[in-house]
């Protein structure tokens, strides 16, 4: 496996030339040249070229855990704004308890924040569920937003980064794939420290060896 150094790339730029390369996400192949379609970092793995975007809107995928806000109540569910052009729909069937059809607002009302999982995406919209552990309405905590393309760095490889923050601050952190982050801890100071750590990662999301960098940052903060 060959690993190319990640390099900054702009739209319309030729990343590599050669028939052996395959175009991945954010790229296009024309006359044996791989062109970028996005602004970000180009990466190569096994001749597959892809561009990791650093900015842009959230692209919903099946299985993503997202955090959204209840926007509307319909006769059989809730419409949830998760920061996409289509709103997500949470059906009555996807709630893990009995709900009286006449009193949907008793379970969740307009303005409530919900952690939900995307079950399907189709032409008509996005369907979400809260029928799983860790999902459902949120009652307390700090809520803030980062760019959705920085979420993988905040979570880290196999959750290494997020568990580091949890360990250091003792807070419970939920990261929505749409870039909304919820922090719940036993004191406001701890919650704010965790928020600062997340913002630090979002800011420095390009550098290599970020986990060590964050460890160092925590050490300095604790002095």
């Amino acid at each position, binding site marked *: 496996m060959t690993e190319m150094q990640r390099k*900054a790339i*702009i*739209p*319309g*730029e030729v990343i590599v030339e050669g028939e052996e390369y395959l175009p991945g996400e*954010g790229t*296009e192949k024309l006359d044996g040249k791989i*062109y970028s*379609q*996005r*602004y*970000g*970092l180009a990466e190569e793995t096994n001749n597959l070229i892809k561009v990791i*975007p*650093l*900015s*842009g*809107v959230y692209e919903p995928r099946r299985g993503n855990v997202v955090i959204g806000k209840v926007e509307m109540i319909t006769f059989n569910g809730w419409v949830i704004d998760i920061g996409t*052009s*289509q709103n997500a729909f949470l059906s009555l069937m996807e709630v893990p308890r009995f709900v009286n059809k006449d009193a949907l607002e008793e379970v969740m009302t307009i303005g409530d924040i919900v952690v939900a999982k995307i079950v399907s995406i189709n032409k008509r919209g996005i369907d979400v569920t809260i029928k799983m552990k860790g999902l459902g309405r949120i009652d307390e905590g700090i809520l803030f937003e980062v760019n959705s*393309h920085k979420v993988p760095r905040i979570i880290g490889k196999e959750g290494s980064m997020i568990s580091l923050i949890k360990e250091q601050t003792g807070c419970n952190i939920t990261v929505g794939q749409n870039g909304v982050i919820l922090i719940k801890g036993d004191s406001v100071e701890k919650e704010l420290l965790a928020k600062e750590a997340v913002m630090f990662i979002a*800011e*420095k*999301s*390009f*550098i290599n060896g970020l986990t060590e960098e964050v460890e160092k940052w925590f050490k300095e903060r604790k002095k």
Partner: protein
Amino acid sequence: MTTKTFKRADGRKNDELRPIKAKVGVIPNADGSAMYQSGDTIAIAAVYGPRKMHPQHAQDPQKASLRCTYNMLSFSVNERIKPGTSRRSTEISKITEWALEPVLMLDKFPNMVVDVFINITQADAGTRCAGINAASMALAHAGVPMKDIVSSISLGKLDKELVVDLTKEEEDFEEGEGATDIPVSMTSQGKITHLQLDGKIKGEQLKEILDIAKKACAKVYEIQKKALKDSIEEKK
């Protein structure tokens, strides 16, 4: 011929651009932003979106819409101009949309809108070109999928001379045949996305001027590219 005595007021060569500065990420609150300065002309562009189009009846279920707003700030020229939209700014906004739309892959975002706000903080001719350059960088910075970057430059014919990147002084040139102003926008591959012409010019000369434009746009492109890449390198 007047060729032997022809000299530009600021001492530039005929194909020489004004000093250019470009920067990306000048507006933290926007999704993407850029500043482009060419001589005394400064344009800043901010991009918001793609976001949901409101009002709903304006949504296009096939693709996203592009909405550009060009605005000259009241203090950008010597004589204060009345703030707000004018006939001229509406026209340039539309021109900017047309210049940028061919490179944007808007079909990926149905029912959405990309808002581009261009503000001219200081004007010395070539503001629409500076605006397009800034907007193109800001769109890339905002992460909108694009086929290419658009670079724009204004060219002109002063009497019989073909020159690049006119200043206000040159635009008001009145000797001989007078001044012809030709703003051109191109992709990095040399495809024209926008061409305007105000004045008189012969067919052969127009062909000639497009060749010059290609070279000038390549220079602008290099600066745009560097500004975009530097913004990533800085944070490394």
